[in-house]
């Protein structure tokens, strides 16, 4: 149960109220990190409302938009504070596919949950995935695909990651993703709903 007014406001998607509270708290000297924490708690609540069927994608996207608008103000102020990420995750839509709605929702939810997300965008080559994983040392990579015709390039990407000797866990998601596809492409996890990504990340990073 949320008690903080800012957490409640973002969970209830009250855009103007959130903007007002963020400004008010900054003015009164509350640390930006604490404000981000309140926002994150509200976002987590929105995520669980999505899971129980109370919220739909429209609400999740709205919540992400409010978070993003708040972060435009808060992020520059966080520099130098002791903000600690729960961990790094590489994300991207695989080569050949330019759909990013699903990926963007998951990125937004993961960021909102305190992860450092390296978002590679769309139509991402296997080389780019590998480079980003090596650079960030991320234990988890998320791959998105909508077009069934691009599932093959997902398989190639995962094979290339393995061939490069990386044991990063691979999470896949997209409308036509199921366990058959997961096994075919050689992924470790598959996500059916937007909030599944957080569950997988929490499982991996809690170890």
């Amino acid at each position, binding site marked *: 149960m949320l008690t903080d007014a800012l957490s409640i406001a973002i969970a209830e998607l009250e855009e103007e109220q959130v903007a007002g509270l963020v400004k008010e708290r900054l003015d009164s000297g509350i640390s930006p990190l604490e404000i981000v924490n309140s926002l994150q708690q509200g976002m987590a609540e929105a995520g669980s409302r999505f899971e129980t069927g109370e919220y*739909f994608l*429209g609400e999740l*996207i709205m919540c992400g938009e409010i978070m993003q608008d708040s972060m435009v103000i808060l992020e520059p102020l966080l520099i130098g504070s002791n903000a600690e990420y729960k961990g790094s995750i590489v994300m991207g839509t695989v080569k050949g*596919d*330019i759909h990013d*709605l699903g990926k963007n929702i998951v990125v937004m939810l993961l960021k909102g949950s305190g992860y450092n997300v390296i978002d590679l965008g769309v139509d991402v080559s296997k080389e780019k995935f590998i480079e980003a994983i090596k650079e960030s040392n991320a234990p988890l990579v998320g791959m998105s695909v909508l077009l069934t015709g691009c599932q093959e390039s997902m398989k190639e990407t995962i094979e290339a990651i393995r061939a490069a000797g990386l044991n990063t866990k691979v999470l896949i998601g997209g*409308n*036509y993703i199921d366990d*058959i596809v997961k096994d075919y492409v050689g992924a470790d996890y598959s996500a059916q709903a937007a909030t599944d990504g957080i569950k997988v990340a929490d499982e991996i990073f809690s170890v």
Partner: protein
Amino acid sequence: MNEKEMLYQKRLERYMTAMDCGKPDMVPVAFGVGEWITKYTGTTLQEIYYDLDKSNNVVSEMLPGLDFDIFKGGPALWWPPMFDAMGSKLYKFPGMGVDENSTFQFNEQEYMKADDYDEFIASPTEWLVNHYLPNISTELENPGSYRSTVALIKGAAAFAMQGGIMAAAWGKWTMENGIVGQGTGFTKAPFDTLGDALRGMKGVLLDLRRRPEKVLAACDAITPHNVNCGLAGAGADTRFPCFAPLHRGAYPFLNPKQWDTFYWPSLKATIEGMWAKGKRMLFYAEGDWTPYLEKIAELPDKSIIFQIDTTDAKKAKKILGGRFCLQGGVPTTLLTYGTPEKVKEHIKRTFDELACDGGFILDTGGVVMGDAKKENAIAMIEAARKYGIY
């Protein structure tokens, strides 16, 4: 009547009977030659998209010997030169923006801004010509200029050329193979016109909270255009349904209240408007529409063919069956990851569950892309004939 004409009549009757929820001599089968064909012809997808003759020849070679009823068309949905002539930003085509063997994709942006609502609502067509075309095409940026005028003429000429070439190809396929085309005309749900093409997914979803009354007014303004689009695009034909790919009404984009308020009324009005003129809609429900089946059942009997993609098929049969023809039954991924044996087993089961009392057309659930295997596609047709006799 020659042999092919007789075959055409038989298949036509099968299709018409199923569309009216009746029980033909056997379950009608719909089939399209998808992008998967390029794996077997030694061509790139780019060649298939840009060279209509090449693409049509591939189809002409494939069709003889295949026994199905309803033809859904060849591998290339669009002819890119029309878009290229206008410098269109709307699509990425194979070899142009994506890899030569990657499929075409829609480049979704907020081509219409939130501030544009009032002008759009006042006169949609005028706004499209004055603002939308310049926004989506580099060659049309300055309306009335020499460059823009030439590009418009070129684009329109390409559209007409494609129409002529494709009409000739369909004529040939029909005459030589006795197959029946699936539909005539094209339309969309007004909310999808707004959400897909104009405001974009994110834009329209945020509008639902920030300016809901504008969304409603825009959908109302679009509705008569979409009714007319479905009717006029088909000429005078009302025998065949008009194709309507439906997007944002799928679960879980909108919450039930939003669906009831913003998605459904204008789509329902579009369907009823066409049905008043005798025109049916192929309600191509991409994704999962299970939560909305009860609402869809409010439509006039037989006014749609309901396409089952990832909707719960048994529920669709229970709620819509008998009053609306259902089409689908084969998951698209089964054609990729299955085997001919698995496909056959699945079709036998599907017929038991969905086809029993008629009003059913066997088809793949969604659009079949380059990943499907030819042997599975053929197995689908063969199994349909083996198990599909009533």
